[in-house]
């Protein structure tokens, strides 16, 4: 019963060994089910009301995607008729919103590097740990979204309030995660490093950080979604562009033909960043 054709009983067989082809096919199954279900619901609603906008049909969605990718946002000037496809894409609503949200996202990601280093130092240098650990543990319990009004007051409603919301929201988790990973490095390794003429910073960066880096990258991967969550919260409240801003605007017009492609686009972007980090981790740390 270990190999061969798929039998329903095998779904709960711990010792089952599915073939690579079966794994590939099964991994797409739920996507197909979801698409099928959506098309069924959409078709049913459109039979009752051909102008239904709650569950747009395939044609409506295609129209929405085309409008997002090739047409500028409502607040921007329209392009000349002779503009090339590339010019259209470059000035499109989706491009503009993606660029704005990505800029905020990647600045926040860069600002999280010091958080990782702080976690490392807290674990490696006992005095830094003594100073920071209790504070970070407490700070971690503050609900980041409750800080949003304070951030708007301090940083204004421009870019920095949204960026700082993401940093403040994710940094304590990342600091504590890195701290725990660095603490878990066997003490023998640290002792060994000192017997091999390592300095304090050699131990911190060339022994401990190098060993935990793949786990830190995995931790960043797991925190991608919370980061985007904070980004969306900021953009929905106070922004003039961005993916979440557009979704919030479209909600007012019941523009599901735009909202659904935007949601899928955000998921694809996040999946891409996650895949990139996973690939980098595999290439940079073959020992992990």
């Amino acid at each position, binding site marked *: 019963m270990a190999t061969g054709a798929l039998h329903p009983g095998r779904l709960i067989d711990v010792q089952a060994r599915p073939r690579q082809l079966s794994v590939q096919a099964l991994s797409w199954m739920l996507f197909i089910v979801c698409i099928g279900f959506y098309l069924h619901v959409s078709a049913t609603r459109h039979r009752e009301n051909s102008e239904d906008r709650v569950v747009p049909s395939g044609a409506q969605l295609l129209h929405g995607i085309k409008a997002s990718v090739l047409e500028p946002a409502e607040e921007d000037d329209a392009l000349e008729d002779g503009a090339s496809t590339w010019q259209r894409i470059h000035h499109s609503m989706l491009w503009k919103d993606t660029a704005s949200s990505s800029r905020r996202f990647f600045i926040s990601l860069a600002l999280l590097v010091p958080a990782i280093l702080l976690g490392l130092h807290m674990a490696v240098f006992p005095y830094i740990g003594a100073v920071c650990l209790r504070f970070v543990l407490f700070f971690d319990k503050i609900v980041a979204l409750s800080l949003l009004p304070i951030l708007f007051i301090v940083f204004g409603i421009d870019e920095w309030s949204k960026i700082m919301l993401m940093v403040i929201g994710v940094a304590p988790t990342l600091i504590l995660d890195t701290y725990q990973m660095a603490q878990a490095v*066997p*003490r*023998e*390794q640290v*002792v*060994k*490093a*000192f*017997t*091999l*003429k*390592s*300095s304090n910073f*050699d131990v911190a960066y060339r*022994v401990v950080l*190098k*060993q935990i880096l793949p786990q830190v990258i995995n931790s960043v991967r797991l925190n991608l979604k919370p980061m985007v969550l904070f980004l969306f919260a900021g953009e929905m409240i106070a922004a003039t562009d961005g993916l979440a801003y557009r979704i919030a605007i479209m909600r007012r017009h019941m523009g599901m033909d735009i909202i659904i492609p935007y949601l899928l686009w955000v998921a694809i972007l996040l999946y891409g960043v996650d895949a990139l980090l996973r690939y980098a981790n595999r290439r940079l*740390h*073959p*020992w*992990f």
Partner: protein
Amino acid sequence: MVLAAKVEELAAPMEASVHTEISLQDVSVSYPAEKQQRKTVLSGVNLEIEAGEFVVLLGETGCGKSTLLRLILGQEFATEGKICVDGKSVTRIDARCGYVPQKYSLFPDRSALDNVMYGPLNAHRKFAGWFRPSRYRYRKQLRTEAKEYLTRMGLRPGDMKKYPHQLSGGMQQRVAIAQCLMMRPPVLLMDEAFSALDPSTRASLQQLVKQIWSDWRPTVVFVTHNTPEALLLGTRLILLTRHTDQETPHSNVALDMKLPVSDELLSARKQSKEFRELVEYVERFTCPGPELVTQSPHGQDFV
């Protein structure tokens, strides 16, 4: 018990040494325990270890062997007393001692070759910048030297590029020993370095360590709870026992004796009658029970 009698003679106070490598004076270690009391691990330990000795620390689990090793290493501090290595007081972990632990002895993110080169490159970096040409020349030279060490330890060229998780436990320990030897530390500390290995790998590593010691003569402090291993390897045996009958239970040196260094091969030595007698003699101190069982129910020797 002819040999045991000889051993008792040898167990007499040591002669004044030419050069004392490690000294422990009235060393006591205790930890805070429940109800504001302290748990004493070691009490009043005095030891003088000469340069070039192969000292084996023997004792049952929890008697403070590893604590004693960590004190020499500088990883732990004595509550009372003074510890000196090479004439200088031990206040922190440094390169005076090489260290081979039971596990996690290699950096998992480096290949076997890079693990061995780690120490010398660190030492060189102190006086040569990262991007100076001399560093690259030195690195090349070091690579050749590291390969020689690893070949001597029994690694094939293909194994040198492997990461620690791709090597067997025995291979990992061989690389760990090479890593220490590259630094040429005056003192080599081994904390149950072979206890996680299978008997045949263990035997081959015992031979290897003994060979290295014969060729290079570092001061070795080897912690084990295996009596035959202790007697096979050491030139001096220090046995720690825990005194639980006293008001404050603590461990101390119960037996300190020089061991006869035989030229015979270790395996041949292990099978001799004298050796079995010696094991029996030492185990009397380790397990002060009513009867020392040395034979299995089928009449085969445990030794």
